[in-house]
């Protein structure tokens, strides 16, 4: 089973949400929302290329678009291997959280610092 990093996982999920129509800027937006900070266009570009190398996504190019200065888009979709990877990642996460202790609600800001000082 292929292993993927955190950013790769987020990108795979973003591609999966727009399967067949996902392209760099759209994936970047999805990842930005999920992570709370925006990766660069270059980071998404290189991550998508890496995932394609691993056989986890496949792509096709569109016709040239005026808004892109006459350049085409590369649109991505998940492969069967990617679906296996995502399923395995989900199962792993569920196993991890199934054995986690109950942590209650999220701590207030500064709570950890006060606990350390005490």
């Amino acid at each position, binding site marked *: 089973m292929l292993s993927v990093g955190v950013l790769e996982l987020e990108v795979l999920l973003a591609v999966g949400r727009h399967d067949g129509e996902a*392209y*760099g*800027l*759209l994936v*970047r*937006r*999805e990842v*930005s*929302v999920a992570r709370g*900070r*925006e990766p*660069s*266009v*270059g*980071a*998404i*570009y*290189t991550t998508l*290329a*890496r995932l394609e*190398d691993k056989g986890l996504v496949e792509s096709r*190019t569109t016709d040239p*678009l*005026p*808004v*892109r*200065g*006459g*350049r*085409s*888009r*590369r649109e991505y979709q998940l492969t069967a291997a990617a679906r296996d990877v995502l399923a395995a990642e989900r199962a792993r996460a569920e196993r991890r959280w199934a054995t986690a202790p109950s942590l209650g609600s999220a701590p207030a800001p500064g709570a950890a610092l006060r606990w350390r000082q005490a």
Partner: protein
Amino acid sequence: MSGADDAVAGAAGRGSAISADVAPTLGRAARIAELALAGLAEDEDELLGDLTEGRAQVEATSGPVAARRWWRSQVVRAVPRLVIHAAARHAGWLLLGGLAGAVAGLAVTTALGAGITARAGDFPPVTTRTFVLAVVGHGLALLLAGVAGGAIAALVSRRAPLLAAAGLGALNGLLWLSHPYYSTYGPGRPAPDGGWVIAFSPTSPDLLFPVLWELPTMAILMPAATVLGGLLAVGWMRSRPRDATL
């Protein structure tokens, strides 16, 4: 997220509904930056297209100044990613390109250096003419070699062509930094007719180069000339019809 990034994110999510229909026009500096990115990316349509589309979206919502700032920051942030990505993915091609560029550069310096061999008296006096010939002629020969080497490196490597040229440029800079203190003139070699011959080629031992020339010019201009050669090759490759390139 910044306001500009919010604009890009929102527009991408709405299928570019708020974006301008046509890509914004770029200034000269931006076009050079685009050329450099094209030389580092494998699919320039994908990367430059995303940057252009994102810029158009920011411009439609936040104005041209914010759009320029967003575009510049994305270009700066993309470069290290592209370099690492290409180096990891195409090390063999980059090495091959760098090697071919180094051979081409050496061929140019040897050819030009052989052309400016000077004849002197029994022992070479340091005349203004020979000094200028050595310093300027040798320097120009090296810079031409840098341009040629960078162009060949880019053409041979093909994948991320500018990276091969930049790597060779860095190597050239290090090479010339490693011996910036040549300040001897001669020894030359005796000519068959009893005179004395001094070769002004980079591989010649007969070198006279003031430190203040060697350091700023060769350590800075040589890498710059090599990268320029790479950029020229990238521009040439981009100007060719798509189906004629790999």
